[in-house]
């Protein structure tokens, strides 16, 4: 698949420029070896259906109600134990946008008159489904 690396590159570049505390890598290069410990670590990994990983701060991920419940230590879900949520039904593109929103939400937490985040029209229906599932 010659086109895939280019796509991955674009995601990584995007996040290094817009959100400093966000990195991405691909799952089969085992993302958990970046000094990230499972359980109650500061960072968690969100994995898209097509294998893109997004490592985000726990507080950021917990903006989403669904992810918060997945990661709740008292739930004993495997996600809570490993600190890794696989979101089968989302593509990397959508999950990227979701992560951007999670950061955006946290950044604007205590501000008034916050405009909507910019959403590309071609992505909005898929993103809507994802947002509904994630309870954000």
């Amino acid at each position: 698949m010659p086109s895939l690396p280019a796509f991955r590159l674009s995601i990584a570049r995007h996040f290094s420029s817009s959100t400093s505390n966000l990195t991405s890598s691909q799952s089969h290069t085992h993302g958990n070896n970046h000094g990230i410990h499972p359980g109650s670590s500061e960072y968690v990994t969100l994995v898209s259906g097509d294998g893109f990983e997004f490592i985000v701060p726990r507080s950021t991920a917990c903006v989403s109600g669904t992810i918060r419940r997945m990661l709740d230590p008292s739930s004993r879900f495997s996600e809570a134990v490993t600190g890794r949520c696989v979101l089968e039904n989302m593509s990397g593109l959508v999950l990227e946008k979701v992560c951007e929103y999670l950061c955006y939400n946290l950044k604007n937490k205590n501000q008034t008159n916050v405009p909507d985040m910019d959403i590309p029209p071609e992505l909005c229906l898929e993103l809507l489904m994802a947002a509904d599932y994630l309870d954000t």
Partner: protein
Amino acid sequence: MADRRQTRNQIRGPQSALTDFLASNNISAAQISEDYQRRVRAAERTAVAEQTPNPIERNDSEGTSESPEQRKKRKRKETAALAKIKQSKEFARRKSRRTGEPGDDDDSMARDILSEQSRPLPGQLENCEICSKRFTVTPYSKTGPNGGLLCAKCSKDQADGDKKPKAKKAGARIGRRQNQSNLLDGNAQQGASTLVESCIRKVADNINDIEEFGDLPSSLLHRLSQILSKRRALTPRTLNLFLRRELRSINIYDTAKLETDDFQKIFTFMPDLNNVNLRFASQLKDRVLDYTMDRELKIEHLQIDSANLVSDTCWQRLFVKLGPDLKTLKLSNLDNSFNDETVEVLSKCCTGLRRLKLKQCWKMGDGSLQAIGRLSSLEHLSLDFIQETDAEKLLDMIGQVGPKLRTLSLEGFPTADDRILEGIHNHCQHLTKLRFTNNSNCTDKTFSKLFTDWPNPALELVDFSSTRDVDNSNADGPADAIGLASQGFVALMNHSGRALQKLNISSCRHISREAFEEAFADDRVYPKLRELDVSFHTIMDDYLIGRIFRCCPSLKKLVAFACFNVQEVRVPVGVALIGGLKAQERIAVEGGQI
């Protein structure tokens, strides 16, 4: 040309009226033009000649190539020029404009004017300050960082640099108008709206590019329909997006743009419909409802607004057909049909009706009240009559359906008197919502009695708006107050305060300041109250509003239209104060505390 001017008999090309006039007065336009050109050329020559020593003059701190005499001479010239400028009108005008600004003495101001005057005029040549290229000065040439002029390219670059940071600033917040609009919607939440909400709005923005919604869940479709309806974007085309076979409910809040066939299409495409909600259904006709009856649709929840092309006989056929399966019926704005006889058929056939709302149906009268009284399983009743009704009939109805009712809303009963409130007190014991508005018969005493020793648990929603005495010659009303006044209000808050979520007491004009102070005293807390409407209470002031904020920690929306003494109130974060005198920027108080 000179030849032609002299020989007047030759044929000339077209010339302007001015030239003609000048010629008739023996003045040559061509001569004037030539003189002007000559003067401009001379000016250009001298300007170029002057500019060459310019760079040396400017760096007078370095001043290496300038002899002491030359410098002295130049200084003297400059002082003379400055003195002349200080005399000028332009200087006086600028000075008067600038008074009060610090750091501007006369000298520096005069120097500014001098440098402006010595700046090259449009059409002349100059070296660009940034790139040092030689260019022709135009009126659009920008001034560089050190006061010199810039060439076209550098001017453009600088203009671009100026624009970008401004655009970014504007993007960070939404505009004041949008902000006030949100406030009026009661939306003063902090932080970004949810991703679901943003996405739905985005989908609505691009509705014309969307081919189908895929398998969006029903709840999202509902919200999308609301937004599209509000924007009046629900057309026959967009309706198709909502028609999905497997869904059992359809909610279209604005069907005004749909044709009769579109309504029929809804019932063709969605045979399992169980919940139908169509507002502004002006083109809904008998044949569509007949079609649903033919298709044996099992509709349990039906809400239709302004379907004035549906006849009484058709309504009756529908009620006979749906029979006891019908659980909810909400009809509004019917002025052409739906008479007492139809309501009679309804109460006979639809015995399973739990929820009934009939608003602004012009033909309904006393007969309808009697018929509704026979609906024995009603739990939610909402009536808004146009015709005047007999208070006796209303009382009978409450006696019959009251014991089972959970919500009761009575509007448009101007003849209702104290007996109605007594009836509610005696018969209703399971209410969570009570609305009784627009009445000027019931007295404060009965309101107070209603809430005293009432076995009904605390109410969650109360609306007593516009219950007051209306007498233009006596604004304060009679001594025994009419409508919800001081006693009644205090009794209401004592009875229901702990559970109350929404309270509307707008225009209950006879509630005194003391009553408000008592109800919103220091030790009172109304933990669940989210929305409060105190419009047209002229005794409301900043202090009382402050007390309300203190006593209602969950308050989200406070409506205070025409409260003229509410002026500089401090609004806690997350609360929308609607109807203030000025469209002022909200004064946010950190942490919601005052």
